[in-house]
């Protein structure tokens, strides 16, 4: 077991005396993560994702509950744990801005007790894997965000960690940089068996990288399953895109929403709890001048929004 969490609970206190109030950030979460898993740990802002990661990496102490990461209690054995995990916070750099990444890596290597040969070999491997050799000798402050994130990833992979904790790692990256970063994560997982524990608000990160998704809201786990299973079981809507031969009127009905209607295009969202998709398609083909028709699932983003809005199960 890579990660085992039982009834993990964290409360933050703010204000003084009478104005003191408590905020439950993480509410008795339990979770198991197997070695080599790629898990997306998602939720709306303030759901408790980052607080969970900070407890699992030992930065924060929980109010109650237990957690074991690679057999260690994170907050009690933090330094030992940091030798075996890699952590990347998209909004906090672990590189020294005035230095080159290589200078930062040398400091990190000294902290991880990597000797000279092991360090050079590792830097060579990471430079190739991340296609970042030429970036390592430039000052961090002169790197673009995408370049810096590759160097950040190299920093957290320097000691060959068994688990990667990534907290919004693609935030602020452009589309190409995001995609490249996702491909790197998948390669790392497939080639090295590195467990990936990812939080992100970007649905494409989840779609591309994760095989399992855990949804957290108001501090509690409200969904935990494979991404594909989530997509299949939680979809109550199908989207039907129709190309029309000529302009027609379409009579809307309960459970069928017209999302777009032009002389040549008709787009419908069908509530599958009210209608069988087959019935709607049969009706369209019979009564309308259909030249083309496709049925698609709504985007994963919509599925996730529905989970966020649903009561905890």
């Amino acid at each position, binding site marked *: 077991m890579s990660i085992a969490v039982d009834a993990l609970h964290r409360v*933050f206190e703010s204000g003084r005396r009478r104005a003191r109030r408590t905020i439950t*950030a993480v509410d008795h979460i339990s979770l198991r993560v197997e070695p080599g898993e790629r898990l997306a740990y998602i939720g709306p*802002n*303030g759901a408790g994702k*980052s*607080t969970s990661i*900070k407890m699992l*990496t*030992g*930065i*924060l*102490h929980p109010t109650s509950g237990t957690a074991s990461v690679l057999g260690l209690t994170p907050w009690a054995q*933090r*330094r*030992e744990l*940091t*030798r075996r995990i890699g*952590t990347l*916070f*998209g*909004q*906090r*750099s*672990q590189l*020294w801005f*005035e*230095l080159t990444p290589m*200078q930062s890596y*040398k*400091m*990190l290597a*000294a*902290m*991880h*007790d990597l000797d000279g040969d092991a360090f050079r070999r590792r830097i060579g491997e990471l430079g190739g894997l991340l296609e970042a050799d030429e970036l390592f000798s430039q000052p961090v402050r002169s790197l673009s965000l995408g370049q810096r994130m590759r160097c950040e990833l190299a920093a957290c992979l320097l000691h060959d960690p068994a688990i990667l904790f990534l*907290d*919004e790692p693609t*935030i602020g990256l452009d589309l190409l940089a995001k995609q490249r970063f996702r491909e790197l994560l998948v390669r790392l997982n497939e080639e090295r068996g590195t467990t990936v524990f990812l939080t992100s608000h970007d649905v494409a990160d989840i779609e591309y990288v994760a095989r399992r998704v855990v949804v957290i809201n108001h501090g509690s786990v409200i969904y935990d399953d494979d991404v594909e299973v989530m997509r299949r079981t939680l979809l109550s809507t199908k989207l039907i895109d129709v190309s029309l031969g000529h302009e027609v009127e379409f009579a809307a009905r309960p459970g069928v929403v017209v999302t777009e209607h032009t002389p040549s295009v008709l787009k419908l969202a069908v509530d599958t709890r009210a209608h069988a998709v087959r019935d709607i398609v049969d009706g369209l083909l019979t009564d309308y001048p259909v030249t083309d028709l496709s049925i698609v699932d709504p985007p994963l983003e919509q599925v996730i929004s529905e989970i966020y809005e649903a009561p905890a199960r």
Partner: protein
Amino acid sequence: MTFRALRVAALTAAQRVVFAPSAFIVSMGIYGGVVAILGSLWRTAASANHGFVAGYTGAALTWYIAASEAATIPLNTRLIEMLGDDIASGAVAAEMLRPASVVAVRIASEIGRTLPHLALCLVAGTGLCWWTVGAPPNLASAALVPLSVALAITCNVVAQHAFAAVSFWIRDARSTWFIYQKFVFVIGGMLLPLEVLPHAMTTVAKLLPFMAMAYAPARLASGHFEPWLLLVQVGWITALACVAAVVFRSGERRLQVVGG
């Protein structure tokens, strides 16, 4: 964590100063100006007082100021404030993800950063004093000054980390910084020898750690061969390092980092 990590942190910080020397040059200019002005003031005060102030000659006071300023000017003047801000904002959390003591690495880096400044201060101060008032009053005690100044800087950096760690509780270290700085200026002996203060205050000041941050090397530089001052400095460094380690460790448990 091994000593190697601290050595690399100190050397890397020293390299940063050498290869980006603008702040370095400014602080050297300030050092030269302060030593020239305060040295001149103290020599004037001594000559107006039959050649002595609290037992120090004008020349001895010039060497005193050169050493006390060499022990304080190379330091980052906003260290407590910056460290306090990093704690209060949670930025220190990223450093907790390394297999090394946050406070030890920070102290090593800061000492490394001051070493090139210190080396230049010692050279410039020696040259300036020799040119204005002649050779040091006592060569044997002067030989101890470089080590004592290095210990003074170490003591100051360690103490600032111990003070800044209150940010884990009070969330704002600025007030701490203001008080700390004034203590070093006056009862640390940076601006004036402790013997100039009223007798009771001199006694109290010599019992506090601030004397190890400026007075100790300055006293040696002014011709007083008192090697035990080095032991006092080492004692305060050890005590303050223990305080900083304990305060940081208990402070880390209180760290509140909300959100990404």
